[in-house]
């Protein structure tokens, strides 16, 4: 084992241990069984056949997923597919030229060259590629959000239920120790009744990717700017955090209100660069969300607020609503009032209850450290082997995608949008 491999193996073990520690706190086997299974299977030596993955879409995100897949213990990258030559070359280079290449996803499916597909194409392509893969009998890992339209999101779920094939959506926070620990403490009542989640994803950039001059590829490369292909901040960022809010509340929103505008980057884009939404849950609980592209002071945060404390999930911190007094200092106050002078017991390292902090600042994907993105992909590989549809994960992914799209409706109509009952998936399926 090389020095790098050894370091990576150590980071894997530390990561899985932290999942185990989080899981011990709240019986993860029942509350987050996917994470328990992932951690358990991850401790193995990776025996048995490796799943042959085909990665469809090897742009920025697809390449990042590909780099993770190359480090996975239970998968290999057998094929890459992209209809944009530079991206395809990038994907092939990452596999050191070993993968088969395709410019059309149907050709990849027809070639029967893979056991499962990973889809990281622009949002508007997710549905057709997912449905084609499931029809071909192949499990699918699809990047979030699920699809561009509500009908497409629903069609993907229906197809997964029909085929009973694994369909997993890319919400890696469901595998991150910081979040698992946060949910453990919420479920244990440590911050009391959670009534509000306040989250934000603020950046300071135009969010554009460079386009070769004169290529005519603006809409293709910067698809996130155009309504035909994406709902922008909602589908590309917010859905991560609507998933976290659903997880914290253990519920699905009932009503959404929203406001959005092209406030700062007036450069021909069609989607807002500044959004604010309120997702209302039963009992008057709310998820308040903002995202903008001209200030990064408050970055990416989720503040989960209960009547007994707060959790800042992204940075892994928990705060009691009222700090308990230091016993020795309480005694001091009493001593002073009684005229007593004696030794004050105090001292010893202590911390406010803190969740494990795994990342302080966003870490770039790629080689180096085992992380939740890799764990979710290895988990997917295990479901491919066992042909198990992880329904709870799919349910979170679906509701997060619907939340993004209904948020778009609320912004465009300027009216509150009621979450349709038909778009609430059951907690379990037979």
């Amino acid at each position, binding site marked *: 084992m090389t020095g790098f491999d050894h370091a990576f193996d150590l980071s894997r073990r*530390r990561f899985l241990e*932290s999942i185990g*520690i989080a899981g011990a706190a709240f019986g993860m086997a029942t509350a987050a069984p996917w994470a328990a299974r992932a951690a358990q299977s991850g401790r193995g030596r990776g025996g048995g056949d490796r799943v042959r993955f085909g990665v469809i879409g090897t742009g920025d995100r697809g390449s990042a997923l590909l780099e993770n897949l190359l480090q996975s213990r239970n998968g290999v990258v057998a094929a890459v597919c992209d209809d944009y030559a530079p991206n395809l070359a990038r994907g092939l280079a990452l596999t050191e030229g070993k993968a088969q290449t395709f410019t059309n996803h149907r050709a990849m499916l027809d070639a029967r060259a893979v056991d499962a597909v990973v889809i990281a194409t622009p949002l508007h392509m997710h549905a057709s590629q997912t449905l084609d893969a499931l029809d071909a009998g192949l499990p699918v890992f699809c990047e979030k959000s699920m699809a561009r339209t509500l009908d497409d999101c629903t069609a993907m779920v229906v197809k997964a239920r029909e085929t009973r094939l694994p369909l997993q959506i890319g919400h890696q926070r469901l595998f991150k*120790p910081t979040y698992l*620990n946060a949910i453990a403490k919420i479920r244990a009542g440590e911050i009391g009744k959670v009534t509000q989640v306040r989250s934000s994803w603020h950046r300071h950039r135009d969010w554009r990717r460079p386009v070769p001059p004169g290529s005519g590829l603006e809409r293709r490369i910067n698809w996130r700017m155009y309504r035909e292909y994406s709902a922008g901040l909602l589908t590309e960022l917010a859905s991560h955090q609507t998933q976290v809010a659903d997880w914290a509340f253990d519920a699905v929103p009932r009503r959404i209100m929203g406001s959005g505008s092209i406030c700062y980057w007036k450069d021909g884009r069609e989607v807002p660069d500044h959004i604010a939404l309120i997702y209302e849950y039963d009992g008057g609980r709310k998820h308040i969300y903002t995202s903008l592209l001209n200030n*990064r*002071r408050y*970055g990416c945060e989720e503040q989960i607020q209960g009547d007994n404390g707060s959790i800042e999930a992204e*940075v892994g*911190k928990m*705060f*009691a609503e*009222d*700090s*308990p*007094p*230091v016993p*020795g*200092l309480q005694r*001091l*106050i009493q*001593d*002073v*009032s*009684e*005229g*007593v*002078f*004696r*030794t*004050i*017991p*105090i*001292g*010893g*390292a*202590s*911390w*406010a209850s*803190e*969740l*494990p*902090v*795994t990342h*302080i*600042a966003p870490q770039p994907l790629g080689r180096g450290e085992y992380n939740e993105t890799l764990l979710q992909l290895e988990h997917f590989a295990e479901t491919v082997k066992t042909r198990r549809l992880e329904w709870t994960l799919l349910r979170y992914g679906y509701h997060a995608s619907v939340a993004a799209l209904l948020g778009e409706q609320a912004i465009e109509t300027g009216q509150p949008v009621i979450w349709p009952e038909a778009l609430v998936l059951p907690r379990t399926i037979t």
Partner: protein
Amino acid sequence: MTFDVPMPVSVVSDRFTAMGTRAEAHLFDAPAGPDAILLVRRAVARAEATLTIHRPSPTTALNERLARGEAAAVDDPILLDALETAEALWRRTNGLFDPTAGAFPGAGGGGFGHLGFDARTARVRPETPSRLDFGGLGKGLALDHAATALRAAGVVAGLISLGESSILALGSHPHGEGWRLGVPHPEHGGYFLQELTLREEALSISATGDRRAAVDRAPTVRPETGEPILTAMTAVAVDRSAATAEAFSTAMLVATAEEREALVLAASEPTRLFIHVFDPVPTAVRVLA
């Protein structure tokens, strides 16, 4: 000692969370009353806002430049003061206290000595990519700022605790000479590891003994090599400056036995240093200073 008729003493108190820990402050017969207690919050908040690496701050902005090995000016006065203090303490502890993180000189990396900090010009010119982490000094600096503000406001008696490991003792206990503090024995409840009397001094405690309280917290490491310190120990340091006490308690923890002895021998009033090493058999506690 008790008095038959206790003299009435006014006390203003505050409890809040800051710097990732719980803070508690008690001021006795403070001239400014409740306003005085706000001085503590403000001082701690200002220090945290400047020195945190967990949110955008002057320190994280500087770290972005340091990570690229770029020179940078240090414009923020609190950050500049922190760097000046850190440099002095890095020298006094022979490098055992080092607020740079991640790159270890023994492995060809950085370290404070390679930061190229010039207090006169308020600039850093790193020789290698580097990063600052004031986690081992921030509480002490915050307490020193609080002490300055409280004394200026006429406060003569108070006790402020940040995480119960960094404690500032202003003046004396209302009913006695100084403040008598006892560090509880980590394994024998009801016993003190050490008792000290402080007057206008600060106390810092650093320990490796109990890892269970903090899941996945980074271990204390030797700055030279990054080697984690695994021996169960508690280091206690006292000084007029809380920052000095904090730096020395950390240094004592990461030092070898010889280095520790050198620190103790070199320490002069007001600095007092103590180390408690816990053998595998807990009863055999050796106090080296």
